Structures are given as structure tokens and as C-alpha cells.
């Protein structure tokens, strides 16, 4: 999609206005400004125009026109994404689904909810709480992010070791294809005949279709939940303790780790009563029936003590539980207070390599001259290093990006991947060449073409053009060799 669109912004807008409320076909720069980026504000672009349809039929007509004139379409939910996946295309349309914000149906007995894609993640659980139900995936942005965006990114959250990701918690999506067909993938059942297109759609970052409805599964709210907090004097010991819990046959509802820098920042911010001298902190939440939770909490406390915890504390009330989590949940803004800017990474690693990866990261931190704090979804191996920097210092963001890409390369090296839940978008598109070879990337391009022959859906995101990959790989290789030589001489 590099050629100029076959229609001007004014002409396209005029056509849209024949079937969409003209107030919601936006072409002036001032009104379009808020759409220039998503949560990854370092990457900005002004679109050709922004359109806010309110029915699936209108989305269909938008897609048919854009397909005909080969105009790029970038779907957008709440714009909370952290990989610039919703960054506009300068010759394209931003299709905002903000008006699709209704909960269409709740079926308490079947434990399902039918939603428009613009429904906020947290709003689902709030609405179904009256039936003793909730929606499992709880990304940190859940107060603002939408279910449509969750489908696009396959969002997880702190509870996904036990309750799964978006892909495990949806039954069907209605979507409009690039060619303007309206199809439903999946149904009310737990599976459908043939290849699993629903899984393919989940996490496809708006490159395969525009989701206009989502049916989600709901879970019975656990009777109780308690959290054990354990401090350790080394990351290695905390990592071993995570293994210890799992070996014991306990699958915690949430299992989070923070390193020394993150502990201090979060405790300053939230006064959560964290052990400030600890080098690593574990928060282990167990949920279920009362009997089960009591049994497992006792076992977890024992495991932590046996594996060298320097402090162990269990929440005795809902208030205490909330306070212990408050620190973790505010870790990002807390770190934001100790630095003008921070850059949040999203690699995953096999848990057994945690200590090695953190150690390497400390070395890099010195090398790049930038501080880094770590929060870690320890249960599922998803690492969120927060690189602290100052965007006003010339060259510092470039150094931050380089540091970030070294971290991602390291994740791939130890058998992990470049993104656990934030998506590739624009931000990590170069690192795709590190994780996948050309044949694999070509297969991805071919998959996209099966859904979107003209290549109009979110072009330039997710999967890199092969011609850039070779160059990037050789650059990285040189860089790596250079580092190794430096280390040898150091």
C-alpha cells in the first residue's frame, strides 16, 4: 500500500456523509488531532480523515468504498494500545468504533455477554456483577480499553495464568471483512467446525477485519481471594519460589514480581507496606472456594518461607488485599514520578531464565546509561521492563529505543518472544525479523492477503516488509558482534 489513494479526502468524506452523520466524518486538523496516536505517543501521524460510524451496515459501506479506492483503514477503539497499532496512516481513514458502546445482551445462565466492540473491559465485569459473574481478562488499562481492542491485541492481565487471555474467553466475533462482507466467526458453542478462524482473528491487530460484535464468556466470581506478599533478598530466590508454588500444584489467580527499583517506587506512591529492603517482591493471589483458598494460602506461605523469603505477609481483609495490589497496579505511574518519561517493554521469557535476563539487563542499563525498573507477570513469563529517560535530552529516546530492542533480542535469544500482550504495531515491527525468518514472515503476509487482498487494513503494521528485514538482521548482527568484542576487551 504505497501508491496514492485513488480518491481525495474531500471526495471520500463527501461519499461517507451520504450515509453517516456528517458531524462524524471529520476532516479538519483540529478535530482529528486527538487521533494522531494511541497510548504509544512517541509515534504520531495525522490521518486523511476520521470517521465514526454507528452501525455495522455503515462500517460495511465504509469498507466497500475504501476497498474500491484502495484507501488504508485503521480501526481504533479507546486508543490505549502500547505499540502504535492504532497510529493513523497519513493517506488513510481512521475508523473509530467509539459509538459501538452498548452491551447488547447478558445471559446469566449461559454465562455469556454480547457486546459491541467499544464496550470498556471493566464495564463488562461491573455490569454482570449483579449475577455473581465477571469477565476474566483484566489488562492494566481495563478502566479505559475496549473489548474490540482486547480482541485485536489478545489482551491478558494479571490473572491469565489461571483464567487465560482474550482468545480463551470469547465465543464469537461478528466482523466486516476488507471487502465489506459481514460474517460471524465462532458461535454460542465452545468450538466450530474446521480451522480455528476465531483464534486467528484474536491478536491480529486490525489487519484481518473490523470487529463489530463480540460474544464473551463470563466466569462465576470466586467466593474469596487472598494475597500473600513475600520479600526476597535476591531475584533468583524469588524466581525459585515461583517454581516452588507451581510444583506444589497451586495455580495462583495472579502471581506478580517486582524488582528492587519497582518496589521502592511503588511503595513511595501507594504506601502499600512493601518490604523496602527487598531485592524482589512476590504477590501471590489465590482465589476459589473458602476451603480451597485457606488450604492453598497456608501451603504458599510455607513454600515461601522454606525457599528463603525474608518477609511473608497475607492479606486478612479485602482492604488489605486491595492495598497490596494497589502498589503493583500503580507501578507504572509510580515509576513515572521518579523519571520525566518511561518506556514500557513487553517481552516474554521462559521463567527459568529470569535471573539471567535481569542480570543482563542491569549490564545493559549501565552500558546505555539509563535506569530500568522491572515488573513481571511471573506466572506467565511476561516481563515489563520500564526504561527511565528524559525525552527533552537530545538523543535519549533513541538510546532508550536501542536499549529496548536489545532487551527484546535477549528475550528471543533465551526462547521467549518480543511481545506478550502489547502487540507488534509499528513499535516492534523491526524485531519481528529477529523472531521470524523470511519464510515465516511471508506466510504471515499470505495469511493477510487471504483476508485482505487489496491490503487496506492497517497496512505497515504487525508484519514487516521482507526487504527491510535482511538489513535489520545484519545491522543487529554487527551490533551484537561489536558488543561481544567490547565485553571481551572490557
Amino acid at each position, binding site marked *: 500500500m504505497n501508491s496514492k489513494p485513488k480518491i481525495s479526502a474531500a471526495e471520500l468524506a463527501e461519499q461517507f456523509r451520504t450515509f453517516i452523520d456528517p458531524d462524524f466524518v471529520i476532516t479538519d486538523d483540529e478535530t482529528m488531532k486527538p487521533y494522531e496516536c494511541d497510548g504509544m505517543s512517541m509515534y504520531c501521524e495525522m490521518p486523511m480523515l476520521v470517521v465514526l460510524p454507528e452501525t455495522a451496515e455503515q462500517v460495511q459501506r465504509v469498507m466497500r468504498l475504501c476497498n474500491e479506492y484502495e484507501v488504508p483503514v485503521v480501526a481504533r477503539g479507546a486508543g490505549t494500545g502500547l505499540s502504535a497499532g492504532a497510529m493513523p496512516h497519513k493517506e488513510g481513514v481512521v475508523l473509530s468504533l467509539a459509538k459501538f458502546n452498548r452491551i447488547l445482551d447478558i445471559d446469566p445462565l449461559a454465562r455469556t455477554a454480547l457486546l459491541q466492540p467499544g464496550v470498556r473491559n471493566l464495564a463488562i465485569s461491573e455490569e454482570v456483577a449483579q449475577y455473581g459473574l465477571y469477565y476474566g481478562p483484566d489488562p492494566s488499562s481495563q478502566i479505559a480499553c475496549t473489548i474490540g481492542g482486547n480482541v485485536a491485541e489478545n489482551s491478558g492481565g494479571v490473572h491469565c495464568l489461571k483464567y487465560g487471555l482474550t482468545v480463551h474467553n470469547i465465543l464469537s466475533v461478528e466482523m466486516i471483512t476488507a471487502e465489506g462482507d459481514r460474517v460471524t466467526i465462532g458461535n454460542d458453542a465452545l468450538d466450530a467446525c474446521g480451522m480455528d478462524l476465531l483464534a486467528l482473528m484474536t491478536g491480529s491487530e486490525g489487519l484481518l477485519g473490523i470487529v463489530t460484535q463480540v460474544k464473551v464468556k463470563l466466569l462465576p466470581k470466586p467466593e474469596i481471594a487472598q494475597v500473600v506478599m513475600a520479600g526476597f533478598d535476591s531475584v533468583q530466590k524469588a524466581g525459585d519460589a515461583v517454581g516452588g508454588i507451581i510444583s506444589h500444584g497451586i495455580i495462583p489467580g495472579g502471581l506478580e514480581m517486582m524488582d528492587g527499583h519497582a518496589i521502592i517506587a511503588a511503595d513511595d506512591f501507594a504506601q502499600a507496606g512493601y518490604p523496602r529492603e527487598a531485592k524482589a517482591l512476590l504477590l501471590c493471589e489465590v482465589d476459589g472456594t473458602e476451603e480451597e483458598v485457606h488450604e492453598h494460602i497456608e501451603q504458599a506461605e510455607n513454600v515461601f518461607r522454606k525457599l528463603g523469603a525474608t518477609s511473608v505477609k497475607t492479606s486478612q481483609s479485602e482492604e488489605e488485599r486491595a492495598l497490596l495490589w494497589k502498589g503493583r497496579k500503580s507501578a507504572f505511574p509510580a515509576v513515572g514520578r521518579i523519571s520525566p518519561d518511561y518506556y514500557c517493554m513487553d517481552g516474554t521469557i521462559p521463567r527459568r531464565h529470569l535471573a539471567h535476563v535481569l542480570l543482563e539487563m542491569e549490564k545493559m542499563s549501565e552500558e546505555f546509561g539509563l535506569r530500568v525498573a522491572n515488573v513481571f507477570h511471573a506466572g506467565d513469563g511476561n516481563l515489563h521492563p520500564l526504561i527511565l529517560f528524559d525525552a527533552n535530552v537530545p538523543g535519549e529516546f533513541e538510546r532508550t529505543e536501542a536499549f529496548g530492542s536489545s532487551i527484546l533480542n535477549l528475550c528471543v535469544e533465551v526462547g521467549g518472544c518480543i511481545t*506478550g500482550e502489547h502487540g507488534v504495531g509499528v513499535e516492534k515491527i523491526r524485531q519481528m525479523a529477529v523472531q521470524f525468518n523470511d519464510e515465516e514472515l511471508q506466510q504471515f503476509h499470505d495469511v493477510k492477503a487471504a483476508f485482505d487482498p487489496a491490503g487496506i487494513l492497517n497496512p505497515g503494521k504487525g508484519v514487516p516488509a521482507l526487504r527491510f528485514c535482511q538489513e535489520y538482521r545484519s545491522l543487529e548482527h554487527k551490533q551484537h558482534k561489536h558488543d561481544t568484542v567490547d565485553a571481551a576487551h572490557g
Partner: protein
Amino acid sequence: MADLSQKLKEQVLQARKTGQKLNIEGGGTKAFMGRAADTDAGSLKMGEHTGIVEYHPVELILTARAGTTLAEIEATLAEEGQCLHFEPPRFGDGSTLGGTLACNLSGPARPWSGSVRDQVLGIRLLNGKGEHLRFGGQVMKNVAGYDTSRLQAGAMGTLGAITEISLKVMPKPAMSLTLVQDMAMDKVIHYMNSRAKEPKPITGAAWVDGKVYLRLAGAKSAVEATAEKWSGEVMEQGDEFWQQLQHMQHDFFAGDEPLWRFSVGSTAETPDLDGPWLIDWAGSQRWYRGEADIAQLETMAQRAGGQVSLFRGGDRTDEVMHHQPRALKEIQQRLKKSFDPDGIFNPGRLYSWL
């Protein structure tokens, strides 16, 4: 234990050159599934491409070659107190992990523990161009690239030969217990769903021959406390019942009468058909025995929010899977072409048009 990937790759390249088609074969225990295999096609034998490549119990992750038997994998996991908690059915000793994923087969715990597709983290796949690709990984969360790993679930090998699978495994529940009681079929759907709505350690809900069976599994104290609150007799040989259900060895499945699988909304009314039913997955999976017209059953299944397939027996030269709407059919044909441009793998096995 052997890595035959190079040999398999060469065979695909050769087939591509000569225009030969290939039926993918593992342990051969699922030959009855799908449409009848193309008898002119050669055979790509996965059954000797075996071995557990990596297993890290504390990471809850296992990687095995596709031809590895479920028996071997489950025995290895059991040594560490772990299991495949999606309870894959075995239709014989030779049932393999690859076939289980290709056919998307999961047992009674599926509504609570997820399906085989849900547990897949990554795969290696030999596509129709003879390229040996790696997708996903050995980590629980991975959103780099499209989820072409889970896409294979149910594709029945039409997109390529799965050669290796990484999946999530889980600890075995500390104990399990089965409650049984008499119940009429028209009452059982509401009953099962009401139980499933409670935050209790339920991992099975099935109905057959006028009896409803609920399985509780997990921490001992939780299982026992729930059993006391819920109605029903504790069943002596409970585990045996669930195993029979899992491996389709229950009497209901015996005989040659066509076996239809209704995958429907859990609370939907059961279609009005003469003939025996077995209800599993708290209502989401319903089995029916009898001669029937697929078009008529499709209407019924759609009304129940799902789909129907002819799982075993009957006419296997016609379609056996629920029909696809035009737009999805076209997308799947293009997807097939993207993975297997010459249509080498399992021609016509899933749909006549694929």
C-alpha cells in the same frame, strides 16, 4: 524417539514436484473422522516423528514432536504430578498429539480447563511449499505474528503437517469425586448450567440414560465441602465413568449407527429428534445417534446457536462438517492456498471444496 523432519520435508518437496497428493497419517486412530481420504494420494507418515523435545514441569510447558503418543506424554507428565487437563480422547494406543490438535479433540473437562487449542503455545509446521516454519513459542503469552498455531485446531491437516507442538500442562487435581442422580433430559440443561454458574470446583457435567453426572475436582477440602452442599450420590467408580466418556468407550458410542456431534449453546433446547442423546460439557456438546439428513440437522444446530458434524459413520463421501457461508468459504480457500498452494495435504478431507 526420532526427528524425521528432514525426511518429511523432502517428501513434501518431492510430492510438489510430481504433483502427488499426501494424506497425513499419525497413529491411524482417527481415520474414521472427516470425509473419506483420497485413495489416490500417498501417505505422509508422522507416526515415527516422535519424542518429547522439552519438558519443564515448573514452567508448565511441554514440547513434543507431533507423532508422540498421548500415552507417552501423559505417562511422562504423571511422573511430575501433572496432566493434559483438556483430557484428550484416545481412540487407540496410537493416538498422537498432532492428530489431537489437527482434529481439535478435548474431553469432559473442556468447558472448565479449556480445549487442546486453548493450551497450544506454538507449533512447527511443514507447509505445502516444503518450508518448515515455527510459529508461537514456548511461553504462555505471545502476540508476535498471527496465531497460526491455534488456527491448525480443527483444520485436519489441510493447512500443512504439524511437526511439533508446545503446550501448557497443568497439575493434576489433588482429588476428584462424582455426584450422580436421576434426571429427565428436559430438566438437565437448566440444572447443569445452574451448577456451572456457581463458583465451585466443577470439572465435568454430563447426562446419559436418565442420569446426570457432576464431577468435582481440586483441593480436597473444597471438593468435599461442595459435595456435601450439592445433591446427588457419590459415585463409587466415578473416574471410570469420565474415562469412558473421554475415550468414547461408553456404551452410548458402541455400534455403527451414525454419530452426530452438536456443538451448541450450553443452554439451548435439545433438538427434537427420535433417538438417543448423550449430553456433555454442561450442555455445549451433545451427541446424537441415528440416520438423519445433515441439512435438517444443520437448521436445528443453528437454532441452538451452534453447528453439527457427522463425527463417525454414515455417508463420508458427502460433506460431514457444517456448511460455511460464502464469505468464510472464500477466505478459507484463500488461506488454504496460502499454506498449500498446490493442494497437496489431505485433499477434500475437511470439506469437498478444500
